[in-house]
């Protein structure tokens, strides 16, 4: 399993990093909203103040004797330009507020949806690792704890070395997916077989145990059910191979599962051997 190494502390580290980022990002977005609100309030206050000054100057101009009107008219012109600039600043501040609110919505979406979703996935992985650690570890040869051939509880199914299963004469063509399943689904299923279902079966768990476990987790696991993984490897469509004279096995059924197992560094899969 060297290609799929995982240290639970790394998963916890990832979870902590994401949670801390979410907290920091939310705080920044909230502060940005407050800053843009303050900006708008300041520009509006300044705009009101300049408008009041303009009105006062206009009143003074109307009441002024002719000899003072020229100077006051210039002051009114300047005050009017100043009001226009303040109004432009208010428009810009309003724009900043709108951007700030949109930013906060987007950040909260990431912090409240994407990050929790990532952390739930990490929790599932940690749980799978915990289950794996709690289950009896099969001997390196693939033998069971009792010292014999692994007992999957299904007649005719034995551990077959992945590196001796060969389907070069019948390669996977086109898209990897089959029957609506995508490569990610296969990866999840094969990894779950190796880390959760196989150790559980060798420890004596039945399909009903996995179904109960899925039910306990409810909707959050969606279609990714350990009972489905049990069926995939020990059900009606197991990996099937034929023994060759050179000791290798040609693959009759299960090429997708075997291909993924190779990618993950898994050494044995249960299968039926013909011949």
């Amino acid at each position, binding site marked *: 399993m060297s*290609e*799929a*190494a*995982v*240290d639970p*502390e*790394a*998963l916890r*580290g*990832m979870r902590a*990093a*994401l949670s*801390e*980022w*979410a907290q*920091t*990002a939310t705080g*920044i977005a909230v*502060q*940005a909203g407050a*800053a*843009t609100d*303050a*900006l708008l309030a*300041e*520009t509006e206050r*300044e705009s009101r103040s300049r408008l009041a000054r303009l009105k006062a100057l206009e009143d003074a101009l109307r009441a002024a004797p002719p000899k003072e009107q020229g100077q006051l008219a210039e002051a009114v012109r*300047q005050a009017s*330009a*100043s009001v226009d*600039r*303040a109004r*432009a*600043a*208010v428009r*810009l*501040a309003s*724009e*900043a507020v709108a*951007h*700030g609110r*949109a*930013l906060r919505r*987007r*950040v909260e979406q*990431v912090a409240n949806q*994407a*990050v929790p*979703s*990532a952390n739930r*996935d*990490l929790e599932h*992985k940690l749980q799978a690792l915990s289950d794996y650690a709690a289950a009896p570890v099969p001997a390196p040869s693939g033998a069971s704890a009792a010292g014999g051939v692994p007992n999957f509880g299904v007649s005719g199914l034995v551990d077959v070395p992945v590196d001796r299963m060969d389907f070069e004469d019948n390669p996977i063509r086109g898209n990897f997916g089959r029957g609506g399943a995508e490569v*990610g689904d296969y*990866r*999840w299923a094969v*990894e779950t077989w190796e880390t959760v279902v196989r150790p559980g079966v060798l420890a004596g768990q039945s399909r009903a145990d996995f179904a109960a476990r899925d039910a306990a987790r409810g909707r959050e696991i969606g279609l990714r059910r350990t009972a489905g993984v049990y069926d995939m490897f020990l059900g009606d469509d197991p990996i099937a191979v034929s023994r060759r004279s050179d000791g290798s096995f040609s693959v009759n059924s299960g090429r997708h599962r075997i291909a993924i197992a190779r*990618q*993950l*560094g898994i050494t044995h899969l249960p299968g039926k051997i013909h011949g």
Partner: protein
Amino acid sequence: MAESGRRLAALESAAADAQRSLESRVSSLADRWRGEARHQFEAEHLAPVLDGGRNMRAELGSIAQIAARADAELNSG
């Protein structure tokens, strides 16, 4: 007025720091978690968060610029 602009610029800088910290922590875990499951996690879960962080920084920069223009409008003339 200028204070709001300074605050927004400081927040942009804080967002950049948070992004760098997240990226650094994620890459520091590479030796202890590798393989297809990690690649899948990165594609499905981590990428949207990192994109969100980059967008936040860019948007804060844009907002700080708007604030600076508002400040310039008030102080010109």
